[in-house]
Structure formats: structure tokens, C-alpha cells
């Protein structure tokens, strides 16, 4: 995910929320010291953070240490079609799906 500041609120984009008990995603909470910023949070969560401070731009990688799929539950994927209309993978519940990634390059 891209961040425009080091504010913890940036992590909401990937489901993490700053609460009194620390940084939480669903039931899971990771304690953080007071005044922690995005760098501290990334370290605590095992996420890489790469910085372009001159551009006020940061990128946070996915959680490391495990597998690319942390669960077999398909992610809530929403992507646009050729006409720009959003399509939710969830709309195909009840059907088997073969998701094929391809590229023009």
C-alpha cells in the first residue's frame, strides 16, 4: 500500500486500525508504544516500508514471515472491467471460479 504520510491511519487501507490496545485487525491486536508512527507499525507487523520522503511518499509491503496466502478464504477483490465498472469477486459466490491473471506485456 502507498502512504502519503507516516500517520498510523494510513494502515486503514489494509485493514489495521489504531485503538487503545494497539493496532488491530479484526480480533488481532499488536501493541504499539505511544507516539508510534507508520515506521514503528510496519516493523511490529513484519511489513517492509520503503520511503521517498522528498516526495512525501511511502510504500508498505505485505506482512512477511509466512505465506503469500495467510488463509484459504478468497480475498474481497474488487476491480474495474474494461469499461471501468467495479466488479466484486464476491458477486460470484455460489459459482466455481477460475481466476486467471494475464498481461499484455
Amino acid at each position, binding site marked *: 500500500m*502507498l502512504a502519503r504520510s507516516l500517520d498510523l491511519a494510513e494502515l486503514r487501507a489494509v485493514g489495521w486500525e489504531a485503538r487503545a490496545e494497539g493496532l488491530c485487525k479484526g480480533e488481532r491486536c499488536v501493541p504499539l508504544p505511544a507516539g508510534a508512527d507508520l515506521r514503528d507499525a510496519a516493523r511490529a507487523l513484519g511489513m517492509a516500508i520503503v520511503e521517498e520522503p522528498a516526495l512525501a511518499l511511502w510504500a508498505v509491503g505485505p506482512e512477511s514471515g509466512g505465506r503469500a496466502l495467510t488463509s484459504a478464504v478468497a480475498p474481497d477483490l474488487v476491480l474495474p472491467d474494461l469499461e471501468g465498472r467495479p466488479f466484486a469477486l464476491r458477486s460470484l459466490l455460489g459459482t466455481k471460479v477460475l481466476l*486467471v491473471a494475464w498481461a499484455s506485456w
Partner: protein
Amino acid sequence: MWQELRAELHPRGLEIVTVALDSGGADAARKWIEAARAVDSPGGTPVDSPGGTPVDSPGGTPHPALIDRAHVCDELFGIVNVPSGVWIDERGMIVRPPETAYPRRPAFLDREIPADATPRLREAMEANRRLRIDAERYVAALRDWVANGDVSRYALAPDEVVGRSRSRPMEHSTAAAHFELGLELQRRGDAERAAGHFREAHRLQPENWTYKRQAWALAGNDRDRLYATDWLAEVKKIGAENYYDPFDD
């Protein structure tokens, strides 16, 4: 290239969703779709027919053809090459993680090398011919799953799905962050700085062909200057037979 299989399996309960991992967005994908109506391209690219087009569906409604400009699927599923297929059952459970997915044996595996081919074209075509693509077994497995669902031997248990997905050490998380910054800087018109991040992504996760090929495509005529390598040079490092993982039933 998925239309025939989709026409066969859609009535039996399978939808095929194609996702173009393409920072060029709909324009890049649409261009390809039109180009694909001509004969597939010789040599150079190993994916001469990389996936479904939304417009040529024979009869009925077209399958969903989605555009992933930001490569979110790379990170979400651990996709490192194309074409890759992920199987998702009726309950929204992944039953097979990303694997090489061709709907039929691609033509480049059997293409005769012309006698007057340049050495470079010859080398590229030879590399293409050595790629391991077991489309027949993949499609047979897919048909089995569509027919038998959970009891198909190809439908994997959740633990196995997770375990078979790619490992994610810190280097790969860092590579993903660099790649994302590279895409953003490219979008802002700073190709030089973008290339610095793409090179880092390539160094940290060399087996990620998606990172490489997307970055090379963005570089266009500057590819040699910015990356000093290409598909053939990179494939030769690992051996063409290792470019795609074999289908592991």
C-alpha cells in the same frame, strides 16, 4: 484464449474471470485484445496468448474481464508470473493457489524455427520451446473439479492451499513495496526514479517475472539502458525449463 473452455464449462457451473495485471490499464489490455486477433507473435514473448478476452465470447454473456493496474493480485495471491490460475469454490474458498494456467498447449511450444532466423530469434524460440507447460493435465484437473467439486482430488484442503502458496520472507515484502513505489513514480512521469525501485524489486525477488516484465514494458526503448537485461537473458540464467513450475497434482 479461454473462450472455448469457458463455453464448455460455464454451463456446468464454472465462471472464468480474467484479470489483466497491467499498469497501462484498460487501454493496454484493449490494444492487446485487438492485436491478438492477428496471429500470435513469434519468439520474443513466451506468452503469445496470455489470457481471456472479454469480447469474443461465442454466444451468451462475456466472462468478467478485469483490469488490475496496481497489481493488487500479485500481492493478494502471491502471483509471480502469467498466466496464473487460482481456483475458488462456491463458498469463496481458494482450493488451488496460483499455478501456471494455459487452456491448451500453446503454439510456441511446437513452432518450427525458420532456417533464416537470426541467432537471437533462434535462441528466443528455442527457449520458448523448452518452457514446461502441461496444459492438458491442468485442463483435465479443472474439468475434474468442475464435475466433482470438493471430492475432486484436485481440490486442496485450506491448509494445503496456504502451504502451497509462495513463502513471503521480508525481502519479498520489501520487493512489493519497491514495485508499488515504482508504479506510482512511473505514473507521475518519473521513469528514472521508478526504474531504481523496479531494479530493487527485481534484485530482492528475482523469481517474480511479473515485476520484471511489467517494468521492462514500461521502459520501452529505454529498457537496455535502465535494466541491461531482457527476458531471454534472464531465462537463460535459470534455464527455460524452470520458468514455469510444473503442475503438481
